[in-house]
C-alpha cells in the first residue's frame, strides 16, 4: 500500500478526527483514505460555488472555511463556518450533487477531499462502521429537513396551508399494539413495487415482513403526534400521510401542512437517526396501510450478524434515498410558502 495511506499519515488522522467517521475501523479508514486527496487554498479561494455539480465531502484539517448562500443576484449571506476537523459538502449527495452554497477559505486552509464514491463503498462493504457513517450522514440530512420545517413555521411572513384542528390522541398514544396485524399479510409482489423495497429480494422481504406489523388506519387518524417519542418507524404501503407542524400565531394554535407523503416512503425514521422526539405529527389523509417496524427490532437486525442484517442495511439505504427526496421537497415547500408573499 502506498506510504501516504498508512495509518500514521495525515489522511488517516484527518479522517479519523472527523466526527462523521468516528465509528470506523482502521481498515475502513484506510479504505476511505484511498479515495481521498488533500487540497490547499489561500484566503478568498472558493472550494466550490453555489449551483456547482459535485458530491465530494470536505474535512478541514488546517485553517477555516466560511459557507455562504446567495440572497438575490449580488448579495451573499454567511450561514456557517467550519474549522479544523469539521466537515462540509455532504448535503450535495441528497440534492442530486448540487451545491447549495459557496464555500470560501477564510484563511490559508487545507482540506481532505473524500470522493463521493464513499457512498458506493458503504453499499459494497456494509460493515458496521459504514452503517454508522450512513446513519451520521442521514442524521445531518434529517436535521436539515427539521431546521427547514422549523423555519417554515417560525417565520410569521411565510404562508402555509393549515388544518383547522388535529385529533388530540394519536394511534401510538392509544396503544398501537391493539391495531397491529401480522406482517406476513403483506403481498410481497406489491411491496416490490415500492421504491424503498426495490433493492430487496423477495426472500429477504418475506423475512422483513415477519419482523414487522401491518397497521391499518382510517382517514383522519393521527399516527403519531409532534414531540412524542417514537418506538417504531413506518413505511406507507398504501394511502397517504400528511405531515403537520403545530405552532401558535397570536396565541392561537395553528397546524401547518408541511408535506404529503405517498406510498413507498418512510415515516418517523428521522427520530431513529438522532433518538429525538417526533418533529411533526403524521395524519392519514386517506385510508392508509402502514408497515410498522419497531426500533428495537431494527437495531437488533443491524447489530446482529444474520441474514436479516443485509435487509436492514438495504432499508437504511432506502431511508437515505428517501431523505434525498424529502430534502428536495422540503426545500421546495419552503420556497413555495415564501413565494406566496409576493402574490396578493
Amino acid at each position, binding site marked *: 500500500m502506498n506510504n501516504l495511506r498508512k495509518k500514521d499519515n495525515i489522511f488517516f488522522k484527518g479522517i479519523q478526527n472527523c466526527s462523521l467517521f468516528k465509528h470506523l475501523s482502521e481498515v475502513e479508514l484506510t479504505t476511505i483514505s484511498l479515495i481521498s486527496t488533500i487540497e490547499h487554498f489561500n484566503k478568498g479561494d472558493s472550494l466550490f460555488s453555489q449551483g456547482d455539480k459535485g458530491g465530494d465531502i470536505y474535512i478541514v484539517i488546517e485553517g477555516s472555511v466560511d459557507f455562504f448562500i446567495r440572497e438575490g443576484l449580488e448579495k451573499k449571506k454567511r450561514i456557517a463556518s467550519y474549522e479544523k476537523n469539521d466537515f462540509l459538502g455532504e448535503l450535495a449527495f441528497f440534492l442530486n450533487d448540487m451545491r447549495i452554497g459557496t464555500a470560501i477559505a477564510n484563511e490559508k486552509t487545507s482540506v481532505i477531499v473524500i470522493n463521493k464514491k464513499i457512498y458506493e463503498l458503504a453499499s459494497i462493504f456494509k460493515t458496521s462502521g459504514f452503517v454508522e457513517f450512513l446513519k451520521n450522514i442521514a442524521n445531518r440530512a434529517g436535521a436539515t429537513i427539521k431546521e427547514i420545517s422549523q423555519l417554515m413555521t417560525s417565520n410569521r411572513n411565510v404562508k402555509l396551508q393549515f388544518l383547522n384542528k388535529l385529533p388530540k390522541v394519536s394511534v401510538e398514544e392509544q396503544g398501537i399494539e391493539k391495531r397491529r396485524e401480522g406482517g406476513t399479510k403483506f403481498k410481497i409482489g*406489491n411491496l416490490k*413495487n415500492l421504491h424503498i423495497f426495490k433493492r430487496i429480494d423477495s426472500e429477504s422481504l418475506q423475512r422483513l415482513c415477519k419482523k414487522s406489523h401491518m397497521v391499518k388506519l382510517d*382517514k383522519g387518524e393521527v399516527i403519531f403526534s409532534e414531540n412524542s417519542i417514537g418506538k417504531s418507524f413506518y413505511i406507507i404501503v398504501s394511502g*397517504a400521510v400528511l405531515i403537520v407542524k403545530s405552532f401558535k400565531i397570536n396565541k392561537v394554535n395553528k397546524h401547518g*401542512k408541511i408535506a*404529503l407523503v*405517498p406510498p413507498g416512503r418512510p415515516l418517523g425514521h428521522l427520530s431513529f437517526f438522532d433518538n429525538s422526539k417526533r418533529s411533526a405529527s403524521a395524519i392519514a389523509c386517506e385510508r392508509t396501510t402502514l408497515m410498522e417496524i419497531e426500533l428495537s427490532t431494527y437495531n437488533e437486525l443491524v447489530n446482529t450478524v444474520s441474514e436479516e442484517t443485509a435487509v436492514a442495511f438495504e432499508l437504511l439505504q432506502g431511508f437515505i434515498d428517501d431523505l434525498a427526496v424529502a430534502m428536495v421537497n422540503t426545500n421546495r415547500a419552503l420556497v413555495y410558502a415564501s413565494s406566496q408573499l409576493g402574490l396578493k
Partner: protein
Amino acid sequence: MCRLVGYLGDDIQVSSLITDSDQSLTRQATDSSVQNFMNVAGTGFKAWENGSIYEDDPYTYKSIELPMYDRTLMGLTKKLKANCVLGHIRATVYGHLSLVNTTNVHPFQFSGTKIALAHNGGLADFPKMKFALAAKCKPEIANKVEGTTDSEWIYALFLSMLDDPYGNHTSEEIAQAAFKTIQEIRLLRNKFKIDTHSVINLIISNGKSVVATCFTYDFGCYEDIVSPAVLSPQMHSLWYTAGDKFGDHDGQWAMYDEDKDGASTSIIVASEPLTRNDSTWFEIQKYSMAVIDRVDGKIKLDIRDMGL
C-alpha cells in the same frame, strides 16, 4: 398522464408556451421531466386575444398529428399572440383499445359556452359511474358530449354545475362549479364503491380568469397493482410561475420580473415546469385550487385548500 398549461397575462406569442421553451408542452410529449410515458394522443389549445374579433371566443386548435412534427401547429402558434392560453397534450394507454381522434383532444369547449376545460388524470372504474354521472348533467349539455373520455364528461358535469352554462362567469363562480364537480364525483365514487387513486387536475378558463385544481381522490390507494401514478406524485403535480415576461433571455428560458415592483402581470400554471431551469417555479400543494384573475393589469392569485 396528460400534460397541460394555462396562461393569463400580458400578450404572449403562443409558441413560447406550446412549442418553443426549452421544456415546452410539445417537448413534454416525448421528454417529460416527471414521467417516462409519451403524450402523443392529441394536441390542443385555446387562445384568447383581447381586442380580437369575437374576443370572447378563443382561437381553437386540435390535432392528432405527432406534435414534434406538426408544422401547422408550429406555424400558427408563431403568428398568434394571446393574453390567455389553455393548452393540452393527451396521454392515453398504449394499445388498440384507446381511441385517438380529435373529439377526444382537450381542451373541451361546447358550442355556445364560454368556458374551456383541460384535464390531467383519470377516474378509476369510470364505466361503473358513467351513466350515473350523465344523469347528473343538464340534458342539453350531456347531449353535446361527442368523445369517449372521462375528461369530457367531467367537463359536462362542470358546466351543469353552473346556473347558466352559456353565460359569462366570474372566477369565483367557475371555482365554485369546479368544487361542486369534484364533490359530485366523490359522491358517485362512494355510491359505486370506487376507492382507488384517481387524479382530477383541471385547468379551466374563460379567457379572463384561470381556475386550476390539484386534487386526487383516495390518494395512494390501490387494489392489487400499484400504478406508476400512485408512486410518483410528481406525475400529477401542478406548478406556477409569475412575473412580467416569459421568454428566452440570453439563452435562459424563464418568467422574468422586469419592473421589480413585486406585482406580477403574467402567470403560467402547468403540470410541470415549462423550463429546464425550474428555480422560478412553485409547486401547488395537493388538495388545492388556484383561482387566478387579472385586476388592473396585475395578477391576483388565491390558492385555496379544498379540504381533505
